[in-house]
Each structure stands twice: as structure tokens, then as C-alpha cells.
């Protein structure tokens, strides 16, 4: 794996060059928060942040996305037929994504890229995107990535990992996509970087992450035991079903499909949806299997921390970014819920005698 050293000048020149080869997205300060925006000519990324308010989820999987076009004009030969909307318009690069948010795509991929069905909108956008991650050297107090299957320097979801230095970055070229990006940026001739200080800095960053979730018992629990656990009313009590958690979450993938017509033409589009909303599961008959708030709150946590765990046997559907903890208006904390679930029921040794 190639390690290169980029001083600030090489970095800035490279970014300008990349704008010709990629649709380039990077955090830009908008108001009080950092958000991913397309970088125009002369516009610089602002990498002086802990994390962006929204994850990069929307760059692969837009909050609203046109799937099909149609005409309702009976004079047109193909009226009432659906035509696929264009997908993934050329290569994209995301600069400054945090490693946890990049790992989130690997979790979400399991939903959209299955042996039986492939979602072409998500897969083509993901495959056309190069992820240039920014290592976390100053994690937030709400971060718990190290116990959620990710980490401040996690490389598994990234094509390039940037480690900030006093002058520029050390860049680790992780994948062929990452090497291609470095070449396009003119960084292929950059001097070799030094790996050893990075390991120390990674250890220092991990040591700063003191908040944690325990997940080791989740798989062994019976689904119905957790489902019927007594703590759900308490967990859900303050929830106002605002859906902020699901919109901010880099691993929430649920969506709605709607037709929107204007005159005699229209689009079938999909929008992010949320299990926090009663309409999400409302039957045509009026019956609603998750008509109560507590049922919806339970669904969100059971999905992330039990159903997903059972289905894929590879950890929880959470990367520990902490956004839902930071932004929940009523302070519902997934770490607390996860630990409650993990500890629920009799301990395995409770029945042992002596």
C-alpha cells in the first residue's frame, strides 16, 4: 500500500486538478455546520471540522431521486410507460469523509446489492465514487466507533486515507480507485510518506474515544425476549417521532416511492423515509402494525441492533458516528439502548449453582 506525503501546496494544486476529472464533493462551512457540497473552480474544502452535520449518505443515495420518467399524454406512443432516469453521471470523489461514514456504505451495500436483486441507482453511484477519508485525530465526545465496528483511522470503506500533518497530509492510497485519484491529482510523483507516526496517532485517537457500546450478547438473545423487554416504554417515552435520527444516520436506508405528475408528464421518485413515522407501515385498511410510538422506536433499535445482527452476522447496523446522540431533541441515546439490550435477561451463568 502506497503512502505519500502531500504538503499544503501539493494538496491545493491536486484538488484543483481533480475538479477536471471528478465531480468533487467536500465539506464546506455553511452557517454553524459543515456540509458536503460540490466544489466549484477556486473553491476550497474546509477540513477544519470534527464531523459534518449530515453524513455523506446523500451523495450516493440522494434524499430525493428520480427513478423513472413517464408521459400521460395519449398522443404519445409510449404514454403510461416508465423510462429509466439517468444514473451516476461520471466519476465522483468525496474529499474529507470520516472513516465511520465510509464504513457505513459497506453496511448499506448489503441492503442494495443482494444476490437476488441489485439496486442500480445505489450501486452505480457507489461504484462511480472515490472516497478520500480524513482520519479523526480529535474525535467527538459522542463518538463510539471503536466498539461499533469502525474506528478513527478505519480504512475498510476508503480508497484514500488522509492523516493531517502540520503542513498538508500524509495520504495512504488504499485501493486502485485511490491510486487512480492520486494520479489524476498529480500526486503520483509526491515523496513517500512515513507510516510509523501514523500508528502512534491512531492509537492516540482511539484512546480519546471513551464512550462504548457492548454488543457481544446481542446475537445470542432470542428476538422475542428483546422485543418484549420491559424497557421499551421507558426508552420511547420522550420520543417525538421527529425522524432526525434516521435522516442523520449514515446507515439508515429506508425509502418511499411516489409518483409526481405535472401536467401530462411526471416522474416516479424515491425519498428517504423513516420508521419513526406512522405512515411508513400503515395498511390501506387502516390497520397499522406499528401504529404506536413505542413500536416504532423499538423497530429502529431492533433493526439496527438485533435484526441486522441476525441477518448478516457481522456486527451492528451502526458505525458509532454519534450524530443521533448529538442531535436527538429529547436525548435518546443509542449507546444506552444498545447496552440495555445487550444486558437484557438473565446472565448466562445465573442458573449455575456453586
Amino acid at each position, binding site marked *: 500500500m502506497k503512502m505519500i506525503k502531500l504538503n499544503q501546496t501539493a494538496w491545493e494544486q491536486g484538488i484543483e486538478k481533480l475538479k477536471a476529472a471528478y465531480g468533487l464533493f467536500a465539506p464546506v462551512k455553511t452557517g454553524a455546520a459543515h456540509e458536503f457540497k460540490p466544489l466549484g473552480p477556486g473553491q476550497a474544502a474546509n477540513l477544519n471540522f470534527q464531523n459534518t452535520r449530515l453524513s455523506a449518505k446523500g451523495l450516493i443515495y440522494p434524499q430525493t431521486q428520480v427513478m423513472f420518467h413517464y408521459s*400521460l399524454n395519449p398522443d404519445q406512443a409510449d404514454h403510461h410507460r416508465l423510462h429509466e432516469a439517468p444514473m451516476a453521471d461520471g466519476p465522483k470523489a468525496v474529499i474529507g469523509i470520516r472513516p465511520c461514514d465510509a464504513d457505513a456504505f459497506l453496511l448499506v451495500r448489503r441492503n442494495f446489492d443482494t444476490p437476488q436483486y441489485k439496486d442500480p441507482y445505489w450501486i452505480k453511484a457507489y461504484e462511480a465514487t472515490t472516497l478520500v477519508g480524513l482520519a479523526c485525530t480529535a474525535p467527538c465526545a459522542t463518538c463510539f466507533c471503536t466498539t461499533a465496528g469502525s474506528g478513527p483511522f478505519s480504512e475498510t470503506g476508503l480508497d484514500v486515507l488522509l492523516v493531517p500533518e502540520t503542513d498538508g497530509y500524509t495520504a495512504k492510497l488504499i485501493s486502485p480507485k485511490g491510486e487512480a485519484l492520486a494520479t489524476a491529482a498529480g500526486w503520483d510523483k509526491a515523496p513517500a510518506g512515513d507510516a510509523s507516526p501514523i500508528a502512534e496517532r491512531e492509537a492516540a485517537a482511539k484512546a480519546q474515544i471513551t464512550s462504548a457500546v457492548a454488543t457481544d450478547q446481542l446475537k445470542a438473545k432470542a428476538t*422475542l425476549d428483546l422485543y418484549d423487554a420491559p424497557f421499551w416504554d421507558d426508552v420511547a417515552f420522550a420520543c417525538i417521532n421527529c425522524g432526525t435520527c434516521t435522516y442523520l444516520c449514515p446507515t439508515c436506508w429506508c425509502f418511499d416511492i411516489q409518483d409526481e405528475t405535472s401536467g401530462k408528464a411526471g416522474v416516479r421518485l424515491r425519498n428517504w423515509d423513516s420508521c419513526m413515522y406512522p405512515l411508513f407501515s400503515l395498511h390501506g385498511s387502516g390497520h397499522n402494525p406499528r401504529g404506536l410510538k413505542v413500536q416504532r422506536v423499538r423497530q429502529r433499535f431492533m433493526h439496527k441492533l438485533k435484526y441486522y445482527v441476525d441477518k448478516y452476522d457481522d456486527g451492528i447496523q451502526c458505525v458509532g458516528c454519534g450524530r443521533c446522540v448529538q442531535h436527538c431533541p429529547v436525548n435518546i441515546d443509542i449507546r444506552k439502548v444498545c447496552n440495555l439490550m445487550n444486558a437484557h435477561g438473565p446472565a448466562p451463568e445465573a442458573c449455575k449453582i456453586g
Partner: protein
Amino acid sequence: MQNPYLPYPVRIDAIVTETEDKNLKTFKFVFLDPEDEKRFAYRSGQFAELSVAGKGEIPIGIASSPTEKGFIMFTVNKVGLVSSHLHAMKVGDVMGVRGPLGNWYPWEQLEGKNVVIIGGGFAFTTLRSSIVYMLDPANRKKFGEIHVIYGARTPGMLLYREELAAWEKRDDIHMHITVDGTNDPDWKYNVGFVPTITDKKAPAADDNTYAIICGPPIMIKFTQPVLDQRGYRHDNIIMSLENRMKCGIGMCGRCNVGKDFVCKDGPVFTLAQLNTMPKEY
């Protein structure tokens, strides 16, 4: 990469109003591209998304049988935006069908077995498909005794009445049609709720007898104890679920019951499976 959200274009070939309240219509569709009919190879128990441009999609069980060629058939209850629009559409109109989706009744496992079909109201669609499939001359010998217990509120609310009458005349299928009540002095079948008729007419349980149940929640709630009492094992009770759906392919997230999606892992589950799952349906 094939787009799993793209429906096959179809033309409405026939529309039949099924019930006296006119809320149920059966639509026969013909594929505009005959090749699409081959791509739409299905089994009884599966469903499809009926797609109307400008309105949206609805998940509906396939009422035709794979043994019936040249068309596919769906019976639709008028409930919401898409189904109401569909009820106002005409023969010749073009729309879309996406599927087949979901799993099916376990036909391989059911070979050589007795099958008891228990249905209520308009949830008789995939059961109609199953009966036509089993009664096909090429298939009938694969199955043992076939019983059908089917109930509706009134005689006029029964679906597929001509076919029911034809099946009544056959000697290779035991029909137990029932209505909750009727003023019709000529009604010659049963009167009583489905659980009651099940108790009276369902064959005794054994390992070779399977029940397939489809109906409104209230019918299922009261039929299950009857089957329990009659000794049916929960592995031998097969049910088909419904939940609100959009994608139909296990991606949009809303129809899950525990870790399983009704659209992709179902809609068919055994009662033994359902016993281990949350009751979110």
C-alpha cells in the same frame, strides 16, 4: 444491470366485477411484449406490484395459476389511491406489472400430501391460483385429498362464483363454501363463520395434511385455535401475510416482521416460523 423497479408494460384485457358491493374487480392483463410473459414465470402464492404511471404501485397476490397461459389475473379491493384509480380504468388501457415477487406456497413439500385450503373474504386470490394449479390435469395426481373451506359475509361477496360452482361438481376436491348469513332460500351450502366450518369439516390432522390459511386477521385469530384443537402441527399450517410495501424486493424497509421482509422472505410463512417472530403484521 437489470432494474428491479421497472414494470413490464401490460394491457388490460378484461375486467370483471366480482362482488355485490362492487368493491372487488378482477383484472386480466396481457403483456405488450410476449417475451415478458416468459420472464414473469411465477408460482402460486407469489404477488406482483401493479403499477399505474402517475399514481403509484400496489402489491397484489397473483390470482391466475401458472398453468393458465396468455394472461395474468389479479383481484383488487378498492381501498386507496392506486386501487381506486385502477377500478376506474378500462379494457385496453396500458399499465405495468412488476414481479413476480416473494416466495410461494411450498409446492415441492406439498407433493403427495393432503391440502386443506382455508380462506375468507377477498383473501382468496392466491388460493384460487393454488386450486387451479393443483386441479390441472398434469398436477392433480401429485396431491392427496384437497379440501377447500371458503367463506364470505354473503353469497354475493364470494369471489369466482362460477368456478366455485364448477369445483362443487367435481369429485376430486371437497368444497366447503360458507357464508356468515343469507336470506337466500335457495342457498344450498354452509352457513357459519369459517372457524366453525373448519371445526366441522376440516379433515383430522396427520403429518401428511397441510393447511394453507389466508384471510382477515379476525378469521385467522379464531381459526388457529380450531386447528390446534384438531391437532394440526404448526409446521403444517402455512400462512400468507400482508404488510404495507413499496419496493417489493426487500430494500425499502417497511414491511419487515422482525428480520424478515414480508415482500422478499415471505409472504408465505409457516405458523411455526411466525411463532418466533414479532406480531408486526
